[in-house]
């Protein structure tokens, strides 16, 4: 790496290559973090996670009993051994909390003053972070599986809602009502994602095995239905084209918006090109996936062979996106993993599961090793010095100039 830094200094290699090389190295070397964890305050399985995009400081999590928790991720204690403390929470017994489980949470993309949650009680709530009270509530006819708000939208404030009714609802935060219904699916929609490149492009997946791409400005139906066979290999009698042979559980765009990954209950992950709708035919193998609800998975940022972290039952698998090679399996949860989210600044992965844990996977191992050595040396030095330091302290606390006789 020193040679690399020298090359950057000399101008042989451009600085962005260093960012790329280091993020790639860190995303490959993820392991369960030994010294940092998140304070375990969850009272039920954790369903959804989100990290705020502006500072990367707050981790929002939603549980299966309707409670919400916010933890502070930044470490100012000066020691590598750190527990991320809970800052505030919404208890399930609050009158304004969700009555059933929270399925999806998302910070407002532009600041952390607002967050949006939705759940099985058919409601979408918009919370004010400072008061921890909902500023607005939308009620729907179907149970909400996922909602998403675009990170780059500047001209609209639309939240796409995927629920158990057959159409996608677009809720406008400025006007406070549902503005659009996108009809195209023939069964309940499980997942929806806005594109990070185009602010009007929406991808949705549903129980009818299809993934549809929408331009929300168009008055007519969807732009395209993604076809897993790319138009071949189908007989004439099968008129519909499907993206998967099972429910489409999860969708994720790559950060440049050029590719879309879809995860289905046919135990397959598929890579699609966003602009042509082509199945890139990358074979990831069989990834067991039997949950009928939305799974959140994430892709690394700014690394060269991009990696995807996919939760599957109790494991998290790491695959290279373009070649489909399995890099690693992250084992740590005791029960099913519900969602994985990648922190873009620290290159860490946070995963949440039904075992009420939120685990941190990090690449900072040398820091941990140095800390362990430091702890060992501390234990050795403690014995002879201990008594002296205590005595010194007692002397400092003692009061030598006031006398009891006065007053």
């Amino acid at each position, binding site marked *: *790496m020193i*040679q*690399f830094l020298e090359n950057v200094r000399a101008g042989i290699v451009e600085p962005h290559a260093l960012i790329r*090389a*280091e993020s*790639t*190295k860190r995303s*490959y*070397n993820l*392991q369960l973090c030994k010294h940092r964890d998140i304070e375990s305050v969850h009272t039920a399985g954790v369903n959804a996670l989100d990290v705020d995009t502006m500072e990367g400081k707050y981790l929002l999590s939603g549980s299966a009993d309707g409670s919400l928790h916010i933890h502070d991720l930044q470490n100012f204690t000066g020691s590598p051994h750190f527990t991320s403390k809970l800052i505030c929470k919404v208890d399930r017994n609050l009158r304004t909390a969700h009555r059933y489980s929270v399925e999806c949470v998302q910070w407002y993309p532009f600041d952390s003053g607002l967050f949006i949650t939705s759940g099985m009680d058919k409601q979408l709530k918009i919370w004010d972070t400072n008061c921890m009270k909902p500023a607005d509530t939308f009620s729907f006819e179907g149970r909400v599986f996922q909602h998403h708000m675009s990170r780059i939208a500047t001209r609209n404030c639309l939240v796409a809602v995927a629920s158990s009714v057959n159409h996608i609802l677009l809720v406008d935060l400025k006007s406070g009502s549902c503005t659009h219904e996108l009809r195209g699916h023939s069964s309940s929609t499980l997942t929806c994602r806005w594109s990070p490149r185009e602010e009007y492009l929406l991808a949705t997946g549903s129980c009818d095995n299809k993934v549809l791409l929408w331009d929300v400005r168009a008055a007519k139906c969807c732009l395209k239905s993604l076809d897993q066979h790319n138009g*071949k*290999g189908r*007989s*004439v*009698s099968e008129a519909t084209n499907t993206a998967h042979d099972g429910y489409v559980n999860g969708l994720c765009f790559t950060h440049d918006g050029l590719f879309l990954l879809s995860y289905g209950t046919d135990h397959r992950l598929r890579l699609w090109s966003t602009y042509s709708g082509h199945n890139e*035919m*990358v*074979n*990831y*193998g*069989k990834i*067991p996936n039997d949950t009928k609800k939305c799974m959140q998975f994430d892709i690394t940022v700014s690394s060269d062979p991009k990696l995807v972290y996919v939760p599957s039952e109790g494991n998290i698998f790491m695959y290279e996106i373009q*070649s*489909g*090679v399995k*890099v*690693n*399996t992250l084992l740590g949860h005791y029960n099913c993993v519900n969602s994985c989210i990648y922190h873009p600044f620290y290159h860490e992965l946070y995963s949440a599961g039904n075992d009420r844990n939120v685990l941190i996977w990090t690449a900072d191992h040398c820091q941990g090793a140095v800390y362990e050595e430091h702890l060992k040396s501390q234990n050795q030095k403690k014995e002879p010095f201990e008594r002296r330091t205590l005595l010194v302290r007692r002397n400092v606390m003692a009061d030598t100039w006031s006398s009891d006789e006065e007053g």
Partner: protein
Amino acid sequence: MSKRPSNSNFYGQSKKFRSSASSASSVQVTANERKVDDSYFSNTPSDTEAALLYLKSKFPIEKFEGRLPPVLLVHQIYSVIKCKTLVDRDVNSLQAKGVVRLFKLGGEETALVVVYSDELVNHIIQHCPTKPVINRFLKELIPKVQDVSIDKTLLQELGFTQQEMSDLVRAGLLTLRSTASFWFSFPNAGEFMRTYLKGRKSVLRTIRKCKFSEILQFELEQRKLEKSAKLGMLYHIHDMIGAELVKCIETTSGTLLRLTKK
């Protein structure tokens, strides 16, 4: 237990081995020389082709007494070559070139079967009655249509009548898929599927009976299969590893095969 790539590779420090092929092709002298280079290097089989040849040698032709050509499964190649996408692409290019033919047999999953084209043609000539329709099928359909299935309308366009289509079905070259389409097939495909499924079940049963549902690979190879499973232990081991029914774990005493749950 994680296999992490070496750290030096991220900064571009590890030197990649440059084979003589790339350095030779970079020297552009005359067109003739380039042609010679191409033909010289195209004869060496790609990784997938080498894997296919190796797997073909594992197929016990003598046990079937000439009733079947060497039939392989696509997922057996995954057990030899790690990168599945590369294998898929190579197999598709081989199919497009006409070297190999793919068939979809069986109902469950995508059990794609691979047969080399020239062996397939020999097999068909050997086993089908010598009717003119069969010759037409061989000469026209096989080179033209590389797909696993075909629509009735396309057959009619190519000049096959209803009677000829039923002749082909009776000969075992086409199988009914739905009211208007057919799957491609080859004679005695049913016998292959029967032996294959029986053999797979018996090997899986053997592993399941072991303690912890795991067994070392060389120990499994020493166990005898029942007589009905004619395809051989090694064929089934490759098939199971590629279909991800067992997980391969490297231990100090060799490769351990452990059944994946479900």
